[in-house]
């Protein structure tokens, strides 16, 4: 039996050693030395604050009870760290860019520097961490009792003194100053030292279990399945849930966020930690197994597996190893408590006390040089005491009856509630403050209801009966079986419901709400952390203030020395040799960032705004700078539009060009046609004239006939020339045709009369269909008749049928007069359809004057109507003339 005094003495000695290391580290850092303090190894070792007393003792217990499941607690962080490129790297970058001081600050800063978010996150973190801190007190107490053969009296005394000692250490080294970015070199040095000690202690006990108790490595492996049957199987739902919770915890636990992000001094350290930290976890876990196996094989039934690490050496009379193991466990517990309380007290003072003290100070008038720095440091000290007290009270209440592991998992599930907002915050620009708040609060309440309250086993708020059968006996609301879920592991149940609701609320509320402008700026800076330069975005918030006021503010928060250094360097940058720097928007934002490193983003923002009278962000500037991705997209889109426009223009040009070419070729064709039309009658005329001249012996009949041909071909020539002139005249000034209100039906009658007169010896026949009888239009009756004659003679001439039949129909509606002239010929081929109204173009196979249709169309158009070729069932072509009806009051 080891005496209690010896243990107390060794513990005190060990604590003194830690104080020494911390003091030395602080001094080295202050003197600018101590490269080892900023080395990746120290960084990685400080991450091992993840392995608490729960790991040191509880992992063996967990392995005995649930087999391989204990490994998930270390596999989750392993997966997150080997995937550092995905997530941790970004969070670390954001943390440095924005001088993030805690996970609550991170969320608050991302969601528009909202103090509400910070307060909610702080409260949640404190509630989730309290059982966890209690767990450490319990592990110290249990181990102390185990090693000295404890009595009931010692129970709370040990826990009390342990808590007091840790509070003293934390206050001494954790609150020496409001450090730039909350870096505590002394504390980190002590934590790193403890990390080494606890790992060596665990390995030592593991090796003792293998070689001192079991018969070597082979024996351990051979015995594994028999000693720990649970090692052979896994429970998939719990396995996946634990993997998820552990992965979330490694970044969401306030103390992990603190060592990973806040204390980080270089992104490269994360690269080293990406394999070295998993390595640490691997070593920790693998030595748990032989201890568990040796424990179950050799220890008497009923001994607490949570304490095998201690009781194995004890029962084998290896006191030195037992004491070393005790120190290892003590290290695990103290390092966790120290970092947790630093992280939590930072959150409490920055997000709860600072806004309150600001309010008090503003009530007393800003002129008073109230020392905010001292207030904050004191509140930090008080919060450390309060948090440890809370943990101690929790430990007293729950009586330490729970298995260690289950308490730790409650905390894991609690802090996992930060995960949806954190992940969405750095990957989804659309996530809004309201969404984050809804998700956080919803998830956190579900966690309280389904996991935290039932863990009190009826001693707090909910009775044991309510836990077992639902409040007021409503089975549907049973905390560990919501909506009738049965036989489901309480942890899996709580995780699914709380994280599920959290995520759903975050997404839905974000989609339904809008971001403030500051939120938009922050979301863009967070999500595009690798692309946007925060320094560039600083000048975006347009504020003005008196430099003197800013200096007073800076002195209060940063202390006189730091503030003076900062203002002097800013003044030099602005080219000023003496005096204060100008309060440019850029400088104000820089100051705000400096302050954020001490009091958190939300408080710093509020403080600076109080001095500078609020700020505005020009939306244009925001759009221009913050969202580089969006800007790129906009540029691309603009380019696309431009090229589309260019393409359209080019297409128009091409079309115009084609049209010009067509017109050109039509002009050629027109000339060629005119030439053809003129030369053909001319050829007859010349030929017959020469015949008449050179053939005096020609008989009279022939002579008469030839002269007749000459005459008729001359008439044809004249008519042709007239047509050409007509067309030219119409095209030049269509409006000049003298017009009157006339009855168009009479023009149709006239045209029919003229045309029928020429049909005497032709088989063609004209059929009159329905006629409307009378139609008042504003036109020239002779010209209109000319159009109808033209259409009729066209229909007859170009009719290949043996018995050409032309049908004429007229009708009118309220505004328009229609004349349709159709024939039973072969119709108009598709290729000709578009061209027949062009000058001088004839159908491919038809003959005759090519100017009739263009002239007719020109005439009708000058009267406000049109001629078109319309589609009709059956053979033949149908031309439709439309003319607007004339009403007398309509001025011509």
């Amino acid at each position, binding site marked *: 039996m080891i005496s209690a005094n010896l243990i107390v003495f060794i513990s005190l000695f060990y604590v003194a050693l830690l104080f020494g290391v911390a003091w030395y580290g602080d001094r080295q850092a202050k003197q600018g030395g101590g490269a080892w303090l900023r080395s990746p190894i120290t960084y990685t070792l400080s991450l091992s604050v993840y392995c608490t007393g729960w790991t040191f003792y509880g992992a063996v217990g967990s392995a005995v009870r649930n087999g391989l499941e204990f490994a998930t607690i270390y596999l989750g962080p392993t997966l997150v760290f080997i995937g550092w490129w995905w997530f941790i790297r970004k969070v670390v970058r954001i943390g440095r860019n924005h001088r993030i001081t805690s996970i609550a600050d991170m969320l608050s800063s991302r969601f528009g520097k909202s103090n509400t978010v910070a307060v909610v996150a702080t409260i949640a973190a404190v509630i989730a961490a309290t059982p966890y801190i209690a767990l450490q007190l319990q592990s110290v107490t249990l181990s102390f009792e185990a090693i000295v053969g404890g009595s009931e009296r010692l129970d709370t005394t040990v826990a009390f003194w342990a808590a007091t000692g840790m509070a003293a250490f934390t206050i001494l080294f954790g609150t020496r100053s409001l450090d730039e970015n909350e870096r505590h070199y002394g504390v980190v040095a002590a934590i790193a030292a403890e990390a080494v000690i606890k790992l060596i202690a665990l390995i030592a006990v593991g090796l003792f279990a293998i070689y001192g108790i079991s018969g070597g490595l082979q024996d351990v492996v051979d015995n594994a399945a028999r000693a720990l049957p649970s090692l052979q199987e896994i429970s998939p739902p719990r396995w996946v849930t634990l993997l998820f919770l552990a992965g979330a915890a490694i970044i969401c636990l306030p103390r992990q966020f603190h060592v990973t992000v806040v204390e980080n001094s270089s992104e490269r350290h994360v690269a080293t930690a990406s394999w070295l930290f998993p390595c640490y976890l691997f070593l920790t876990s693998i030595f748990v197994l032989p201890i568990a196996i040796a424990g179950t094989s050799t220890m008497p039934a009923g001994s607490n597996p949570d304490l095998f690490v201690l009781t194995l050496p004890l029962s084998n009379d290896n006191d030195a190893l037992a004491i070393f193991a005790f120190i290892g466990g003590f290290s695990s517990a103290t390092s966790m408590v120290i970092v947790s309380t630093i992280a939590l007290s930072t959150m409490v003072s920055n997000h709860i006390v600072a806004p309150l003290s600001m309010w008090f100070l503003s009530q007393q008038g800003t002129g008073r040089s109230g020392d905010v720095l001292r207030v904050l440091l004191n509140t930090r000290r008080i919060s450390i005491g309060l948090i440890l007290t809370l943990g101690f009270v929790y430990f007293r209440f729950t009586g330490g009856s729970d298995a260690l592991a289950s308490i730790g998992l409650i905390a894991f599930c609690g802090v996992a509630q930060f995960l949806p907002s954190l992940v969405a915050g750095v990957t989804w620009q659309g996530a809004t403050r309201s969404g984050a708040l809804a998700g956080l609060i919803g998830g956190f309440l579900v966690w309280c209801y389904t996991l935290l309250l039932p863990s009190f086993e009826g001693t707090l708020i909910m009775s044991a009966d309510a836990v077992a059968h639902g409040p007021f006996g409503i089975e549907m609301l049973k905390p560990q079986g919501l909506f009738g879920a049965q036989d489901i592991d309480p942890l899996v149940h709580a995780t699914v419901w709380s994280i599920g609701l959290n995520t759903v609320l975050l997404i839905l509320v974000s989609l339904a709400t809008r971001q403030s402008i500051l939120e938009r700026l922050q979301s863009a800076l967070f999500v595009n952390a690798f692309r946007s330069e925060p320094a560039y975005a600083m000048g975006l918030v347009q504020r003005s203030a008196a430099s003197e006021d800013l200096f007073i503010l800076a002195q209060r928060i940063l202390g006189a020395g730091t503030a003076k250094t900062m203002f002097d360097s800013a003044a030099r940058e602005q080219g000023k040799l003496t005096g204060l720097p100008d309060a440019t928007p850029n400088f104000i934002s820089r100051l705000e960032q400096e302050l954020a490193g001490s009091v958190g983003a939300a408080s710093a923002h509020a403080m600076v705004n109080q001095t500078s009278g609020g700020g505005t962000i020009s939306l244009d500037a925001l759009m221009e700078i913050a969202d580089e991705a969006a800007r790129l997209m906009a540029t691309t889109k603009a380019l696309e539009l431009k090229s589309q426009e260019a393409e359209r223009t080019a297409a128009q040009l091409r079309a115009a060009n084609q049209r010009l070419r067509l017109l050109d070729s039509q002009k050629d064709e027109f000339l060629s046609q005119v030439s053809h039309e003129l030369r053909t009658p001319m050829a007859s005329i*010349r*030929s017959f004239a*020469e*015949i008449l001249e*050179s053939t005096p012996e020609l008989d009279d009949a022939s002579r008469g006939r030839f002269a007749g041909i000459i005459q008729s*071909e001359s008439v044809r020539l004249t008519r042709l020339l007239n047509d050409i002139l007509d067309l030219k005249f119409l095209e030049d000034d269509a409006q000049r045709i003298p017009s009157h209100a006339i009855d168009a039906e009479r023009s149709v009658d006239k045209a029919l009369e003229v045309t029928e007169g020429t049909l005497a010896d032709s088989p063609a026949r004209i059929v009159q269909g329905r006629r409307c009888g009378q139609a008042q239009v504003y036109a020239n009756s002779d010209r209109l008749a000319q159009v109808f004659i033209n259409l009729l003679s066209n229909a007859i001439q170009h009719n290949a049928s043996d018995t050409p039949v032309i049908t004429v129909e007229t009708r009118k509606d309220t505004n328009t007069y229609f004349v349709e002239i159709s024939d039973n010929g072969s119709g108009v081929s598709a290729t000709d359809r578009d061209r027949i109204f062009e000058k001088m173009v004839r159908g491919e196979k038809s003959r005759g004057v090519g100017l009739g249709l263009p002239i007719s169309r020109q005439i009708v158009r000058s009267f406000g109507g049109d001629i078109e070729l319309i589609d009709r069932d059956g053979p033949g072509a149908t031309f439709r003339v439309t003319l607007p009806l004339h009403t007398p009051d309509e001025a011509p």
Partner: protein
Amino acid sequence: MTVRVMIVEDEPYIVESLEFLLSRDGFRVTSQSDGDQAMRDILNDPPDVLVLDAMLPGRSGFDILREVRNTPAVQSLPILMLTAKGQQSAAEDAKKSGVSLFMTKPFSNAELVDAVRRLAS
């Protein structure tokens, strides 16, 4: 042996004047106004000389010209082409397609008869 001349032309007055002129000069003259029909007549009973209008309903004068030149049986048939279109390009096209002689309307009677006479010999 009378020389047979075939006129392919759709303007009736021109056909009339050509028939008058050529028969007066001792040629046996037939005429056809449709391109398709003309091509069939040429293959059935090839004339000694062909007087061909360039623009015809159905097959154009140029089509007939090319087809004649591509048909071994009538390949060497002398062809006088008439056209009312005044462009130079038409004359060149005709020459390329293998026309024997080319005249533009309106033509001189003497020149025309002389041309047919030369083609016949």
